[in-house]
Structures are given as C-alpha cells and as structure tokens.
C-alpha cells in the first residue's frame, strides 16, 4: 500500500472502485494512459472479485472527451474554452447578482451520492454559508431516501447495513426485496452463496435465477406483499414474541393494518401465489440466521418509505434486527451513497445526520463553521421539487451541479431538462461532458476518482480511503479547489473552505462529533494504518481519533436501537396503488432499472469501449406475448410512452419480464432516456420519485435515418 504517496518506484496505490456502494478495494499501477487495475485479494468485501465496470474503470481516466479546461457559453451559444479565473469570476459575479436581485434562495445546489465525504460536506457548507441558500439537495434523494426515512423511524438511525457485509456469509436465508446485486454489485453475491435466497422482483433477474424462491409481484405491489408476509408470520406462529415484547414498540398498530392482508387477497393484488408467500415466511421464520434486505425495487415508489417500513416490520416481528447473525438492511447504491446522505448535502440535514430543524444541531454545526446559527437557512426543497421549481416564479434562477447528471437521472426528464434550460445560470462541475453539462452556461472540469484523496463510506458504514494514483491533468481542478475559489470570491475566508481533503475531514469530524453519524474518532492516520472503522466512531476524551481510539461500530444495534428507550419501532402502514395504474390507453407497467455494464446516468460507463460493447444502447425488455400483442419484433425500435413522455428503445424479447411489464434501463441519453416516461409522483415522507412503476404503451417506431 502506498498510502497517500505518489512517490516510489513500482508505484502502486490501494484505493476503491469509482462506482457502486460496495466499494471493492483495488490496486492501481502504471502511469496516465496506461493505468492498470486489479482487485485486492484481502479486502473482505470483494475478496479479489471485481465486475466488468471495475476492471475497466481506468478507461474513464483516459476518456477521449475528458474536460480539460473550463467552458463558458459564448455569445453564439456554443460552449467555448475559458481560463479558470475568467470562469470563476463569471460564476461568482452572476451568483452575486442573482442573489442581490432575487434573494439567497434564488441560487440552488445539486449534489451527488458519488462525491467523497469531504466534497459532500464542503458542498453543504458552501450552500448554507457561502451562498446562504436553503436550496440544496442531491441525487441520493432518488436513491436512498425511502430507506433512510423508514429505517430512521424504525431504528432511530439510518445505516444501510448496520452490520458488516461479511456477516451475510453465515446466513441461512436472505430475503432480497427489489434488489438485484448479481447485476448491480456482483461481488456482493460472494457473500450470499451460503444462504437460500428469497428474491422479490417482478423480473427474473440474474439474482432471481440464483434464488431458492422467486416471488414475482406486479410492479407497485411490494407493499401489499410485505403486509401479507407479516400477516402470515402471525398466523403461522412465527413471531418472536419475546423479542417483540422486549426490544420493540408499536406492534399492535402495525398488525391491525395487516389483518386486511390475508394471503389470498395479497395474491389477487400482487399475483404472487399464496402458497409461495407461505413458503417464504416459513423459510425466513424457520431459519436460525436470516436477513431482510431491500433495494431500489422496493424503495423507488411514491410509497417507497412505507414499503421499506413494512419489510422492517416483518423483520422486527421475526426478531431479526440488532441480533448477531441476523438483521435488516438496505443495499445502498451509489459509491458514497451512505456518506453522501450524512454529510449535509440533503435539503434538511447538516453533517453527521444532524437536522436543520433542530436548534441544538444547528448550534453545534454553526459553532464549527464559525457562524451565527441564526444565519443558517432552514430546510429546502427535495431534489425533484427543486428541479421542478427551477426558473419558475418562486424557484431558483441559478443552479450549481456537482457529481450529478439530472438530465438523464431525474424523473420526468423532458420537463426537468426544460426547467434547466430556463435558468439564468447553470454551472456544472464534471470530468466528462455529461448531458447536463451540455446545457450549462459554465462548465468546470474537475478531478476524478484516481486523481484525488478523500474518504467514502460504503454500504456497510465503513469509512474507506480513496487515494490519488495520478495527479489531475493540467487544467483540471478538484471540486474542493473549485468550491474554495468560489467561496473566496463570494467573500468567505480562505480558511473556511480548505482544499486539502485531510483538513476537510478533520473539520467534518468536529461537525459530526456527538451526532448519530459520529466520525469524530476516525482519522486519515487510522484509516491509512489499515483499521476497519464503521461509524459511529466517537473520539476519545482527548478528542483525538488517533492511537487507541474507539474501535468503531461494525454492528450498531446489538444492545439497543437508537431511540431514547432503546426500542425499535413498528410503523403502521397500509398498501396503496401506484400514482398511475395501467388503463386502456397505457395498458402496461413500465419499470426502470440497471444493467450490469452501465452505471447510473452512464456519463462514465458510456465512455468505456468494453462496456459499450456489452450494453451499447437502450433496450426495452418485453415478454414474447407482449411483443406479439403490440406488433414488435426482436431488434426493432419501439416507443415506450406514458402521459409524461416517450422513450425510444430497441426491443429485446425475453421471458424474464412479465407479460404485463416492460423494462427499460435508465443509463442512456437523448431520446433513449428511460426517465422520459417516468412521472412526478413523490413519496410523501421521503420525496422519492416513482421510478419503478409507470403506466405505458409500446408502439413500433421507425428506425431513425
């Protein structure tokens, strides 16, 4: 391991993959243009494994269209190269102007779950302190918000997996609700080999193929399914009454909604045979060590937080959470999807999961930031609501985007694109010319994964060091340098926005001290010494995380849950249909998701030749009967339309989808954006959009010339 070093002969750097929340450990070697990657054999999460995205990640460093200079929209409408000072002065000047004319909330910030902890932290601080705006949210809202809302309510704390990934190795049974790790985080499957899997997914995914039992509910019905499973847990006598009595509260109120969900009724609503529901509950309830894990399939709905709550209720009734060898968890998606949701780039949060609405939390963070708590803005709009308000009367007129590509990844994409176009000022920091960058007034080229230091917090709540193997190319700055330069131009002190990640980390340790996600006992020194530290990890009495510090908390809830009385909460929830059900005009369910060879909006992976070869273009998967019914053939072009818009995609006929459902991956740009047909329904608690179910029709489309 080279630590932070770029020195030495035979130079190697141990770091982590740039993509998903599994954060496989990798070793980089070679120089720019010839960087090689290999998986670390000894990192417990990937154990020498890596998927094709990870193996080919160095290609992104050498992307031919890498952004190497700032770009400013010229009078003729094109994006033209500009110097850094010119670009930064322009941005700061316009921001100042817009703020002066329309108020601080006229400037908004949109962050990302792929940003390091240091960047996410600084971005939140930049918004609240340098811009003074309440209008900041991030793309993790589209990812983890439903699970976060539900598990915070249930356990008092949201850590995706409140236990190490390796605990899954010993499981007898694992229920995966709307999760497809075989295609979204393949090396995780190495930890699921010993268990019988119960997979809930409308599609027969590669994960479902590995399942002992595959339940195939119709899209939008997972909540009814979960209620039915709890119903059966009771009627089959599988409830762990002692656990319910001693470690939880609120069972009765949650159960009362389940009385209406007897298995045969659940079967009618979900399409899952009552018999299979019973088998699933018996498998889970009969196992000595069992886990319930949710993924985006259960979460990305206008009832996503209630759906997760229903699965938490099931896990609680069976006595799983907070027990060695069993548990409940959610599989976080983005690379820093966990850290990104704790560091204060979310509309209602301050670092460490502190709340913008809590006076004590505000006071603590304000003291660390050296500002008066009264100057901190309150909670702002959630991601979709923010995008939807851009350029409208009451909404922001300027937007700064870091680590996100909402033109592709936001729901109701055509509308969001139009909102972005209506802005007075759009600033995008990215390392490749993403679809969002293409709309920007100013594009700022920033460093990427193997060119920067920092930390990320993986799906198991372990804080990991990202290490620079290369220096950024000339002309490219780090996000921290960009935020520093802008903050100074906006009148902030240079010391308030450090550019060295280690300094930022030391500050975020103080900001998170005593909070739910407490990083104060973690330091670069401890991480570089190879310690495996899961938060919460409070500092010792000396406030110093080094040396014999707190060992971290691999398993969070073994003794108690994070509510004041130590008990987990059941949440009373009931089923409701999706915002829009199929009807005569839009007779099918349209669902969106991922393919193995692409990542998120595809801005990175669509620039890797091997991945493009594996998944070259947007497809629409449909059952052969569905293709026949709508006059479509394998390989032909189809239009997938909803009331919100239409996506063009190539037909792939497969029996892996239900005849009433079509599936479109969301990684592709332009007319192939799956989000052209997704809508604006939001979860009332988490503000999660309904990515997973739309009512659509499919029709033949001519080949474009």
């Amino acid at each position, binding site marked *: 391991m080279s630590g932070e070093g770029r020195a030495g002969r035979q130079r190697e750097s141990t770091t982590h993959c740039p993509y998903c929340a599994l954060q496989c450990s990798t070793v980089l070697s070679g120089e720019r243009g010839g960087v090689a990657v290999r998986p670390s054999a000894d990192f417990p999460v990937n154990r020498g*494994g890596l998927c*094709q995205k990870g193996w080919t990640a160095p290609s992104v460093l050498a992307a031919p269209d890498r952004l190497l200079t700032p770009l400013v929209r010229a009078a003729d409408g094109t994006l033209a190269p500009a110097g850094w000072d010119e670009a930064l002065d322009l941005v700061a000047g316009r921001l100042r102007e817009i703020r002066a004319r329309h108020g601080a909330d006229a400037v908004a910030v949109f962050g990302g779950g792929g940003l390091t902890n240091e960047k996410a932290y600084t971005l939140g601080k930049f918004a609240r302190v340098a811009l003074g705006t309440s209008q900041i949210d991030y793309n993790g809202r589209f990812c983890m918000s439903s699970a976060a809302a539900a598990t915070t309510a249930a356990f008092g704390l949201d850590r995706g997996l409140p236990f190490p990934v390796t605990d899954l190795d010993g499981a007898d049974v694992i229920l995966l609700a709307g999760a497809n790790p075989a295609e979204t985080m*393949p090396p995780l499957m190495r930890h699921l080999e010993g268990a019988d899997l119960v997979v809930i997914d409308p599609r027969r995914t590669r994960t479902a193929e590995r399942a002992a039992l595959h339940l195939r509910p119709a899209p939008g019905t997972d909540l009814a399914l979960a209620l039915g499973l709890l119903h059966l847990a009771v*009627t089959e006598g599988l409830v762990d009454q002692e656990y319910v009595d001693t470690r939880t509260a609120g069972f009765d109120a949650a159960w*009362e909604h389940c009385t209406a969900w007897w298995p045969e009724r659940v079967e009618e609503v979900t399409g899952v045979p009552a018999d299979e529901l019973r088998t699933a509950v018996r498998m889970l309830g009969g196992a000595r060590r069992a886990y319930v894990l949710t993924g985006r399939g259960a979460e990305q709905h206008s009832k996503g937080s209630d759906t997760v709550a229903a699965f938490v209720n099931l896990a609680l009734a069976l006595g799983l959470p907070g027990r060695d060898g069993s548990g409940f968890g959610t599989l976080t998606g983005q690379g820093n999807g966990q850290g990104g949701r704790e560091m204060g780039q979310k509309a209602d949060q301050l670092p460490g999961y502190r709340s913008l609405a809590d006076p004590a939390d505000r006071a603590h963070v304000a003291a660390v930031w050296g500002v008066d708590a009264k100057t901190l803005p309150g909670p702002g709009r959630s991601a979709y609501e923010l995008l939807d308000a851009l350029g409208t009367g009451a909404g922001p007129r300027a937007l700064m985007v870091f680590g996100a590509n909402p033109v592709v990844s936001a729901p109701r994409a055509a509308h969001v694109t139009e909102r972005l176009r209506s802005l007075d000022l759009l600033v995008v920091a990215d390392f490749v010319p993403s679809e969002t960058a293409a709309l920007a007034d100013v594009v700022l080229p920033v460093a990427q994964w193997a060119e920067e230091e920092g930390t990320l917090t993986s799906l198991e709540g372990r804080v990991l060091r990202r290490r620079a193997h290369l220096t950024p190319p000339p002309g490219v700055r780090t996000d921290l340098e960009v935020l520093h330069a802008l903050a100074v131009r906006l009148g902030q002190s240079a010391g308030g926005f450090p550019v060295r990640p280690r300094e930022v980390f030391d500050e975020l340790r103080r900001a998170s001290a005593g909070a739910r996600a407490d990083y104060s006992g973690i330091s670069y020194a401890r991480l570089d010494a190879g310690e495996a530290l899961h938060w919460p990890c409070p500092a010792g009495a000396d406030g110093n995380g080094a040396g014999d510090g707190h060992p971290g908390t691999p398993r969070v809830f073994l003794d108690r849950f994070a509510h004041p009385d130590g008990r987990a909460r059941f949440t009373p929830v009931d089923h409701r249909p999706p915002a829009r059900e199929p009807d005569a005009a839009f007779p099918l369910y349209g669902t969106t998701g991922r393919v193995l060879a692409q990542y998120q909006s595809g801005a990175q992976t669509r620039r890797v030749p091997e991945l493009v070869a594996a998944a070259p273009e947007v497809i629409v998967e449909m059952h052969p009967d569905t293709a026949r019914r709508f006059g479509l053939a394998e390989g032909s072009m189809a239009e997938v339309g909803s009331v919100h818009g239409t996506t063009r995609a190539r037909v792939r006929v497969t029996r892996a989808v239900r005849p009433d459902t079509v599936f479109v991956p969301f990684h592709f740009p332009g007319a192939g954006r799956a989000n052209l047909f997704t809508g604006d329904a939001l979860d009332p608690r988490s503000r999660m959009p309904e990515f997973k179910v739309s009512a659509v029709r499919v029709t033949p489309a001519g080949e474009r010339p």
Partner: protein
Amino acid sequence: MTGVVIVGGGPAAHRLAALLARYGHPGGVSVVGAEPRPPYNRALLGSVLDGTLDADRLTLPALPAAVRQLTGVRVTAVDRARRAIRLDDGRELPYGVLVLATGARPRTPRVPGLQTQPGRLADGVRAVRTAADCRPLSEGPVVVVGGGIRGVETAWALSGTGQEVALVHPAGQLMERHLDMVAAALPAEWLAARGVALHLGRRAAEYTPGKVVLDDGQVLAAGTVLLCTGTVAESALARASGLEVRGGVVVDDLLRTGDPHIHAIGDCAEHAGTTGTTVLRAWEQAETLARNLTGRERPYAPERRVLRPRTPGRDMVVLPPAAPVRPDDTDATVSLLDRARGHHARLVLRGGRIHEGTVIGSPSAVAEVSRLYLRDEPVPADLLALLTGADGTYAGDGTPPDDTVVCHCNNVTRKALKDAWHRGAHDEAALARATRATTGCGGCTAAVRSLCTALEGATP
C-alpha cells in the same frame, strides 16, 4: 349540517368511517355498533376458530379521534321524517346522512332441534358470525352443515388441526353453485384425504345435543354443529323504516335507498339484484360511498371479483362470468384435467381474455389466472403453461451456443473461454486471469470448471 351516522360495527362501517375522515368529510361521523367491541375483521373468524389467530388480533386499525364510536348499542328505529335514529339505551341521534351497514346473519336450516326458539340456536350449535362464536369447540366431532365455500373452508381448517370432522351437504357434490361435478371432485378428495367424512346428497334431519341424524337414518356424533348454510341480509331496520327490501336493502347506483338521505353498503345491501357476500365487495362499496359523500360523485361499478376459498395448501379459484353475460360470443373453452397431480382448469375465453373459469390445484396457475381475469388482460400464447402452472421463463434448452455469455459480470462468452483454454489457460485460475471470468459474483465458477473438464475430455 348534521353528519353521517353509520349503523353497523363491521368492516364495511369501519372502512367507510376511515375513508370519510381521510377524504375530509366536513360533518361529524358516528358509528353505531351492536357488538361490545370496536370493529374487527370478520373475514378472519375462521382463523380464530381453528386457533391460528387470537380473537383480539382481529381488531381493525383505530378510527381517527374525530369519528364518534358507539359500541354495544342497537338501533331500534329510524325516524325518517325527523332524520334521527333511536337507540336501545333511549338516546336519539340525528343524521344528515344515514348509512346502513348492518351486514348479514347466518341462515339457519329448518332442521328439528337446531333452534330452541326462533333465532336461538340449541346448545352445541353455532354459526360463525361474531368473535363470540369463536369460543373453543366442545369435545367431540364437529359436524359441518353445508358444503359451499364456507363449509369447505371450515372443514379444511378444522381437519388440519386434527379435529374429527364430518360434512353434510344436500347436493351430490360440494360447491355446486360454483363448480361442476368434475371440478368439485377435487376439493372432495382434499377433505377426504384429511379424514373428513363427507355426507353428500344427505340432509340433516334432526339434531339432539351430541348427535345429528341424517335423512337416511345415519347418526353422526356431534360435539359441535357448525352451520355453514349461508347468510341473510340484516335488513329488519330498513324494512321497519319502510325502505324497499328484497334480498337486501335495495340501493341504486349511488348506493342510495329510496330515501335519498339513507344509503346501504356491504352484506345488507342489494345492488343491481346482487347482495354482496364478501368483505372485499363491502370495502369497494365503502370506497365508492365515501367518495360520493365527499363531493367526488361517481356511480358504483362493481369490480371483477374472484371467489378464492381459503384452504391453505390447496388452492382453487372460481371466476364468475364477466358482465355482460353473452355466452354466444365467447371464442373458446379450454379445459385441463390432470388427476394424478390433482389439477383442474377450465377457462371460457372471449376476445383472448378470460370470461369465466375455474382453476384448482396449481397454486401458480390460480394466482396467474386470477390476475389476468381481474385485470381483464390477454391470456398468454402458451395456455398449457398457464394452466399447469409451468413457468415458461425457466425453460432451458440443451447445450448453449458459443456466443452464450458464461460470465455476465465480465461479459465473457463460452467462445472467449474456449479460445483462452486453447491458448493454454487450462484451469479456473488461469481462465480468470485470461478472461476475468469468475471474478465478479463468482456465480459462473461451476460452469467454467465444467467447461474445462469438457475441453480436457475432448482433447486427445
């Protein structure tokens, strides 16, 4: 304005009150129930009787505090002129809108000895309508009277607990209103296999405590007699109030009786000549009425419903003929009988969709066919797979071609692996180094190993 008063303490009344609160009904909402406990889910009483649920587990979610709940109170009269109801404790309650949700009561067959006086069942005889009816059974065998859906469910549930059960039914087959002879043989086999003594084509002729005498003279020992002989709409109050009653309280498409201030929903109501008999129907009517009373008026259009007897471990569904019933324009009847596996299915199709049908025995076929029928979706091309419950998606076919992807995580084809093998990568580790196969999820390790073995075998 005076509020909505709902008479009844069951799931229909509960759902209506909850929805009126949710939809923001501006006036007060009161629920007047005769039973001493707050509303509970009657549909699950069978589970209490067979011991899988405690009676106190049936309580429905608490209604919002704004809803006034009166329990253990009977309504003795409706004063339509003054728009008020009278209660048996002497109180009077005015209403702006009155909703009758009084449900149904068990029908008692005319068998000497079952009743000690009209409306009063003899010792050892009960019907399962209220939680109080679910007290522990007496010692000795249970005689289930009635072989409809409820009778079959009850006999199945009790026999599963080891209880000795006999079932007496006047028709020559079970569930004759819903099943033909061929289909009905299957549930009969299920019950017989659990030791239920079936007495089909027989009537109970007389009951005396401890025994039932059949019309052919057989005597059945009976610790308990359970009446599963249907229900009658509880419509006495409506009748006494001068409202039209046929099979139930007659309502129009807005679920109104002849008095525009009085509505009826659930098992006590008769809409378009049909009295509802399931809780799902009652909830559907509660939903419609709640919308209509909160300004989102739309006529009641009964949704399709399946009859899905609850016989855990053995599955069947009956799909009633869909409206409009025009037998002449159906396009096909498909049937399947697999006696060995105990599967039976019969579907009548119209325009490639299910018009009516029955599926028995295959859990997945029951689920799949129910959903297609309920949502009026086209049946799949492979009807045999649908009806047998075979999963078409799982079918594999022989040796994979060379362009088959073996390692999906790294997009490695069989051909790429073969090529690497011929270049000298002769084991799993070498193939992993050469192609990256097996380095992702590890799921293809076995396939890669077996390919190695096959190639070794093929090489001299």
